[in-house]
């Protein structure tokens, strides 16, 4: 449980850094790190297939998409960066305070966390593959439709931009 706790703290800290850092590229790296830590947590919660998906797709592919999008936009000057850094600090210094206050409130009043609990052993049932292919047909259909819709959407967006 201690390792899980360290991972959860790391997840929150990296997410906070992702949100607060000024450079977009650093934010994207932070997002990839958040996904990587989340995938380790998922693996430890006996969900290895979802963890692999999270690591490869969310940590890899989405980072590539974000980097591509950022690379098409213009780099801001140092003067603008300095101004934005000040604005960003003014906007975001509340966030760690809000997070700490919420955590303290939840720990004291609403929830009673037990950090020394042993991990539970999950009940054995249908495997993921069996479940996905035999019981969740509608999900698969939805995924195919979403992928097609996404592909068409991107084609239309980029086609219009060429004109």
């Amino acid at each position, binding site marked *: 449980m201690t390792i899980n706790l360290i991972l959860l703290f790391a997840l929150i800290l990296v997410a906070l850094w992702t949100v607060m850092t000024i450079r977009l590229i650093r934010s994207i790296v932070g997002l990839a790190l958040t996904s990587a830590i989340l995938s380790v947590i*998922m693996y430890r919660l006996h969900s290895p297939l979802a963890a692999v998906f999270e690591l490869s797709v969310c940590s890899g592919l989405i980072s590539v998409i974000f980097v591509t999008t*950022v690379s098409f936009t213009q780099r801001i000057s140092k003067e603008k960066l300095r101004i934005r850094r000040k604005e960003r600090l003014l906007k975001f210094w509340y966030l760690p305070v809000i997070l700490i206050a919420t955590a303290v409130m939840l720990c004291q009043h609403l*929830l009673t966390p037990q950090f020394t609990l042993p991990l539970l052993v999950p009940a054995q049932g249908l495997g*993921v593959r069996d479940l996905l292919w035999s019981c969740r047909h509608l999900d698969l259909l939805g*995924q195919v439709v979403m992928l097609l819709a996404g592909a068409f959407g991107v084609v239309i967006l980029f086609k219009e*931009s060429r004109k």
Partner: protein
Amino acid sequence: MSQSALQLFCTFGIFIILLLITGAYCMFVSFNLIRVLIGFEILIKAVTLLIICAGYVCGRTALAQAIVITLIVIEIVVMVVAGGVALWAYRHNKTIDPRKLSNLKG
């Protein structure tokens, strides 16, 4: 659900709520379309952790994994399209600040 499982869920629940707050704050405060998407991503990560944790404490990790895989596929499609929209907005307006998107109809 046993008492120990509920307590484990509560422990993870605190961090899930903190992650939700972080993502939501980023979405509401930022005036940059890419940063809004990053906040949205963090929100999705919180939901993913919630589903996996719920599946774990109920002993139904296979179902949770199936749902998370569906979530990830939909997430990637949404991100690709949203990234394309942000790029389209930049090419037409030379900015990704949503306050300056003045040529939107409606």
